[in-house]
């Protein structure tokens, strides 16, 4: 007649000891070795605390309708210029040349955020003038909302020159965000919500492109017009204006930020516990061996019978 296992249950055995014994010491050492080394292992294997993380967002960008244009009209350094700043226009005197500018901003996917700026500028020229180089500076209002609320004013700078006089310059590029240090994970970040060009200043130094670009590049957050392929078309008909067509896209950006306390803890906790489980299992086996075999003297108390009868 064969026997078979009809039922099984684990039996709980308690091992008792007093405070000042080897078993107590052993227990303390085991506890330390179980819970502290996982922390060290998780830390030393790098990436325990995440300090930088990224998210994706399309910024809310608006063209600020501020423009500064400088065009070299001869090879010996004559120029014409125009801006939307009245003080500068007054200063330019005879070099002021007012172009015809048309601007349209488009929301292509109807998500409420503008996606594209179409900027068209026609610069009328005198018969003896030709355009050899173009410097165009336009400013934007740039906003991010998902993690920290970023409100800033930024610029795009186009500079192109050619030894051959041109008829048209076509620019199609992206307005990219550049950041040096990660953004905070929450709060309002508006230290750069100041004018890139101080249009109310009557001093010539306020419109110096050197100082404008220098102070702009000192910022942590900047935008840059990434236009790898400007198209310079030569062959301007006499009497026709120089044309500058720009298509500037406002693409989705990957923004890095410094995670907050709970996000950091969340990822650290996962790593710690996953290593801890291994240590718990190992030291559980060690403890069982030690106490079962009475390597350290303890008083085992077998499971009592639950019912007295």
């Amino acid at each position, binding site marked *: 007649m064969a026997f078979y296992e009809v039922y099984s249950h684990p039996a709980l055995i308690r091992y008792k000891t007093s405070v000042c014994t080897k078993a107590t010491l052993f227990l303390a050492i085991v506890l330390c070795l179980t819970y502290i080394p996982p922390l060290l292992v998780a*830390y030393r294997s790098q990436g325990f*605390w995440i*300090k930088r993380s990224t998210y994706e967002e399309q910024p*809310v960008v*608006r*063209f*600020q*309708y501020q423009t*500064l244009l*400088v065009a070299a009209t001869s090879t*010996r*350094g*004559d*120029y014409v*210029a125009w801006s*939307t*700043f*009245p*003080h*500068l*226009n*007054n*200063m*330019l*005197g005879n*070099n002021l040349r007012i172009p015809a*500018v048309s*601007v349209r901003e*488009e*929301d*292509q*996917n*109807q*998500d*409420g*955020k*503008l996606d594209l700026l179409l900027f068209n500028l026609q610069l009328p020229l005198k018969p003896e003038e030709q355009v050899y180089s173009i*410097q165009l500076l336009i400013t934007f*209002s740039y906003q991010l*909302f998902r993690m920290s609320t970023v409100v800033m004013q930024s610029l795009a700078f186009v500079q192109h020159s050619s030894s051959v006089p041109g008829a048209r310059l076509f620019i199609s590029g992206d307005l990219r965000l550049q950041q040096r240090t990660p953004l905070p994970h929450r709060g309002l970040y508006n230290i750069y919500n100041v004018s890139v060009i101080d*249009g*109310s200043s*009557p*001093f*010539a*130094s306020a*419109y*110096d*492109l050197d100082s404008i670009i220098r102070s702009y590049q000192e910022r942590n957050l900047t935008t840059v017009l990434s236009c790898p392929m400007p198209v310079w078309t030569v062959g301007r008909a006499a009497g026709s204006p120089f044309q500058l067509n720009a298509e500037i896209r406002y693409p989705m950006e990957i923004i890095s930020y410094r995670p907050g*306390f709970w996000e*950091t*803890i969340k990822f*650290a906790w996962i790593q710690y516990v996953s290593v801890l489980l291994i240590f718990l299992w190992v030291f559980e086996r060690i403890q069982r061996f030690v106490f079962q075999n009475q390597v350290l003297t303890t008083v085992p108390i077998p499971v009592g019978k639950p019912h007295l009868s």
Partner: protein
Amino acid sequence: MATWTVVRRSTSQVFSLFLFFTAVSSNENATSYNNFHTAAFGDQNVTFNDMDNDTTTQPTEFDSTTPTTLSYSTTEEPVLPTLTTEPLPVSDRLLSVVTNVGSFCPCDEHKDVCDINCCCDRECGEEVALFTGCSVVTVSGNKKLCSRDVASSSLRSTIDGYSEVQLFVHKETNYDVFCIQSQNRVDGFSHPSPAIPTGSNFDSLFKQFSSFIFGSEENSGQASSAEPLTVSGYRYGDIMMTAEDSGQRGIFWLPAPTVTADCVDTSPAAFLQDQSNRCTRDLVLEQDCSTLLALSIDTYTNIQLIAGKNTVADVVPVQVSSVILQSVDGTQTELQISDGENLNPLLLNQALCANVVLKVGYVMTYNPAGEMVNVTVSVVLGFVSEGAVPLEQEFLVTFVQEDEEEVAVHYSGNPGYVDGLPLVSGTRSADGIVQSVDPRDTLSLLHSTEDQDCLLGPHQHSPVLFGVDSVSGCTLRLEDAGNCSLVSQMLLDVLRGPNYSQYVASFGNSPLGNPLDWLPVNNFNLDEAQSCSIPLSFHLEVEWTKYGSLVNPQNQIVSIREIIQTNTTSLELLSGGSSILSVRSSVSFIPVSAPAHPGYRATPTIDAKLPFDFFFPFV
């Protein structure tokens, strides 16, 4: 735009509204599906008949300008505006919305003319024979609906070879699990009808929708003349006023470069801001020599400044302190100013203009009340030839406090040297160290010129700036190096500069009376072997250290030496047959600071410590 932002943000918060608003935005996406250009019918919508009865018949009642009335509120009733405001004359009715997909033809762009390849154009008859395809194939309703109307048009050939347009409207079924079976929201799938501008809400509407526009500059052109006149004097950065002959007030201009290096004449000078502007002018000598005001000395000297900002302030005339005449080869002589002399530009011949203003320096003395006390100007006049065009002019303005005993000595740091400021140097005399008041008279380095020759003058020198390593040089032609001892001495003089100082201050503000603070320039001559040798390189080596606290370290020069390298072999061999030798002058700054280390009061026993970011988010 603001409206949409609010919608998007709130959808992420309230999930139950997510489908609803996505349906709104995807309604427009249905049009791009059909290959239209979105700009072709910007404000028209493909919607359904049963949902816009309210908006078409009574558009004026529906005011939804503010984002909140876009109604995620549970009340179904839109906010009714009070009817007391009169609508503006032209805008009392809005266009009704085209809703039936069958009657919607986006490619019909010409009135009463058949649009080619526009299959839904009702005017096309015989012209269909010219068609090659349909530019708009389908016009469909909202794709989120389980059952939607789709108007399709197609072109097919008949048996006898003619083209024939087929138009039909049919129902398409959406088998998506989350399709919308029926919808009872009136404004769910269409844009909310815009608020009717009335006389009372026009300003708020304008403010809401026009954030950036052309011509929105707050200050249009004129200098800020409407400042409060509570302060009688100027303050830092204020524009200084002049009294014109006509009795009006003008502005004190100081030419400056702006977007290019060209001079801009109408840039004001700011009170208490020292400026040094260099800018260029393009001239046609024959025309401009006597007519261009910017070349004439009178433009810069015949100025009456107003001492303060208020109207009763005194007038301070600009006094000419010196006029220096610069000859064609660059030598300068001071002119004795006599009254009748005409110093205006003069065209000597077709290619030479005399008495042209090259440099203007204003020195303005002010008192603590912000009033101008005294203004002097010194002018450098010179000749401009045809070859020296465009002409560079320099304009300086410096502000000096009244009652200042002597010219202020510029420190190069207080106390430690500041990066980029010139070294403080002096010479030893019987009663201590003597330092020049001119900040340019300091240890300097030869600056390369266009003719590159070491022995031919004039030589330019640039001051040695603290912390800035630099190199420059000149060339020595071998045929000039015949008299060795003479050339060697001349070359050394050129390399060392005209005002070669033997002592350098160890701090930026070392007092003259303390000789221990001044370090001698050690002469370290390599290769003393030969009796006479030509110096081939002149190198200044400055060792400096950081001094004082870790938080505010002060830069201190600990030693300075000049290293002169001379030739050891014959010059011909060194030049490699090119008969030209290059002579280098350089300066280098070597930090010799000991690395900062923490100091303990008692030696700690255990140095086991966790990495600094071990408890990163907690600390």
